[in-house]
């Protein structure tokens, strides 16, 4: 029982980070970046490549994050901005971000080949017994990092001018520009931050999955589910809660039903949650978890 909760929280914090990455870019631009999983993959591949050619792991990891940051900004400039400029409410972004994902994924497969490569171990090998269960240091690192990043995001959002500006841009982009905000810069920064979140998730999961160009598909999908379960489309932090729930459900299903159950059980959970609360469990529209906020008065 404790074992699957702990390992569920560990893997869930990875899903949560990717979910938050999706949610952060959605928050500012109102589009879902289908290339988000690929941004994570870019970090993993670049880090693995540099580490295997002899660079220190920390340097390789930094370079990997920088690369996914650049690719993330490119995804905004190439696949998102032209669509937003033409028509904010059409679904063209669905196609363009997916097209961007296809390009990145296959470019990686072209450069590094479709097979998995070694990823430098960061803290593997050490494990800590907790109660009757075991948590590897790698898992612990994932949980702590996710907690720090989630809390950090909330602190920045609520207590810094940039965070407040981000909220303002999310709520009313036109009014934000009318108080002097360059909304393009805000969006680019949001995409860069979301790329870093996805990249960090990649660094945390890399040692267990190895480096594979198709990593982005799987984890992008799980990140998306995390965001939807949590309701990250309204509050990015909710995607982290969604991720944790998803992780625990998946590991729990594996432990209690059968070893394949993690493939389908989370989806059942997702469907049930969306039937009850279409915008996610921790969203503002869910009466159960409604944060304090009064409906907008008509003006």
């Amino acid at each position: 029982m404790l074992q699957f909760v702990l390992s569920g929280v560990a893997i869930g914090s990875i899903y949560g980070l990717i979910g938050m990455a999706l949610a952060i870019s959605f928050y500012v631009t109102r589009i879902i970046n289908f290339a988000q999983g690929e941004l994570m993959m870019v970090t993993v591949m670049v880090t693995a490549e540099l580490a295997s050619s002899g660079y220190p792991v920390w340097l390789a990891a930094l370079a990997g994050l920088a690369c996914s940051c650049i690719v993330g900004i490119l995804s905004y400039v190439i696949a998102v901005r032209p669509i937003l400029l033409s028509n904010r409410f059409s679904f063209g972004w669905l196609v363009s971000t997916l097209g961007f994902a296809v390009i990145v994924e296959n470019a990686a497969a072209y450069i590094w080949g479709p097979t998995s490569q070694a990823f430098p171990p960061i803290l593997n090998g050490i494990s800590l017994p907790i109660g009757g269960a075991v948590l590897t240091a790698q898992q612990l690192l994932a949980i702590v990092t996710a907690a720090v990043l989630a809390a950090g995001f909330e602190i920045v959002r609520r207590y810094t001018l940039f965070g407040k500006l981000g909220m303002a841009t999310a709520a009313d982009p036109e009014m934000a520009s009318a108080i002097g905000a360059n909304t393009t810069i805000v969006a680019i920064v949001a995409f860069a931050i979301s790329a870093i979140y996805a990249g960090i998730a990649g660094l945390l999961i890399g040692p267990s999955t190895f480096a594979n160009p198709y990593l982005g598909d799987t984890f992008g999908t799980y990140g998306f589910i995390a965001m939807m379960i949590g309701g990250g489309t309204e509050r990015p932090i909710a995607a982290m809660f969604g991720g944790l729930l998803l992780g625990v459900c998946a590991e729990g299903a594996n432990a209690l039903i059968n070893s394949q159950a993690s493939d389908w059980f989370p989806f059942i959970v997702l469907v049930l949650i969306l039937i009850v609360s279409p915008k996610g469990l921790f969203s503002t529209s869910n009466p159960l978890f409604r944060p304090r906020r009064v409906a907008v008065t008509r003006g």
Partner: protein
Amino acid sequence: MAPAFDTQSGTAAPRLRIGRWRAAGLAAVLIAYLAATAYVAHTDLGLQSLVLVAAVFGILAISLDLVAGMLGLYSLGQGGFFGIGAYATTILANDYGWNAFGLLALVLAATGLIGMAVGAMSLRVSGLYFAITTFIFTLVLTVLATDMVTVTGGLQGLLGPAFPDFPASLEWLGTPLVWCIMLALLACLGLVWNIRHSPLYPILLSIRDAEPFAEAAGARTAAIKVGVFGVSAAMAGGAGWLFSFLGVVSPSQFDWSVSLNVLVMVLIGGINTSIGPVVGAMFVSMFPNVVNINPWLQEIVYGALSILAITLLPDGVVGIARRALARRAGGIAPAAEAASAEAMPTAPATAASPASPTDSEVIVECRGIEFGYGLGPKVLRNVDLAVRRGHIHGLIGPNGSGKSTLANVISGRLTPHAGEVLLKGTRVDGMPASSRSRLGLRRTFQAAQLVKELTPTQNVMVGLFDRVPRIVGRAPLWPMLASGRRDLAAMQRRASEALSLVGAGDWTARQVADVPHGIEQLTQLASVCVAGPDIIVLDEPATGLSAKEVRHLAAILANLKTQGVTMIIIEHQTRFLFPLCDRVTVLNAGEVILTGSADEVRADPVVRQVYLGE
């Protein structure tokens, strides 16, 4: 494709000739299509499978365009319905030996019903969330197909059943599957083409772009959406049935990326066009076979092309072609001034002193209406309103006083928290807007709710929705039915007449996006009048009209009054409103201050202070 309606132009004889030419052209296209099918049916297997896969995806793309293009429901569930069809057919035919055509009927019915269920569930959410919930539907099905190894064969998939052979007498036709798939594609094209040429088409577009307008015209928009989504799902399921005969059925052939690819097809080919989806499907499905390079580079090129297509050609290939054709054909704008005084209706100007009975029965009544948005403050407080038959009843008040809200409560857009609304003595406050339309109530909107890409005539036809029987049922076969052609011609005639009557007769053939604001307002009015309603609620009809147009509008309204139509008019411009009105009600901050004749209202000191600002 030929333009949808052009019956407004020209006399009968040339129209007949055009009709004949079109029939001949259609026959030629059909024969060419069948000849091409015969050619494919006799050619080698490689080309056959290339064409057949493209055709199956063509059907899939048409099924998506039906909901995405005409209803604005961007479904990512098409892959899921496709998979249900393919798996059901494969499993039931291989393991239980069911007849292929019996399975077709089963698959169509089952996917249609599932589609309606998914649609009904997803309708609680709109736009992006509709796409997401249908996306998750596909995701769940893919996972189930992958994991239920004993039934579905897991990732390896299953080998599809063989398609039944032709009877010996028909063997000269070639491969039967080719005929079956190509005829199915033709049937789907025909179905969509028919809908596009039926009066259902403007109604579907108005549900997409101006749902309140469609509802006010009597359309049960939710039911129509669910029904059309069911048809679309059945079409995707049918495509799955066809696909199962083409080889192996495995989860990767209908996972979420397939749903997205179908959307790419539709968007590249041209959304909401008859052949665009098929063009897109051909491009996307044949692309890997035509561009023969390293598979990863090929994917990269595909990704880049889809980004380019979507950023540079937002209307798709067909949209571009159509615009090029339109530019060549050109078009002459009618005289700039909208409602010319000459086009005035034949109404005697009885506006000044309406000779209406002052003691006729009450036809619209509100009792103690309370309403507020969300948890915000009350917008309407204990509002009573009684409108007598044949009267023009003005509703004035400062901005934010609740006038439009009251109009929405009367017409059924909003349900009051407390109080009663009665129409002709029937209590209606629990009824949807579409049912109130059947009681003879129509309304216009402050910001004209019209479909920009249709002509005023087509928009006015939406107003006839509940005056013509079985539009929805007949739509799939409409142009082929004698009753359909007759009704369509009658509807077009009535719509053009209504437009001429309000003075917008010169603008019938242009898109609403290209007409001036005044004509938009008049089109709205025509779409209401065409149905011959007893009661009309007008929300700021004079907004944005020139002084001349306002005078014209006043004459039209006075004319309607002589025909016994009751009107409730919300208006700021008291100079326009007061001469028309029998009674005026003044609202302020959600409460009725006063109801009386125009003179009484004008003389009231409170009204002068609050509203007239003196």
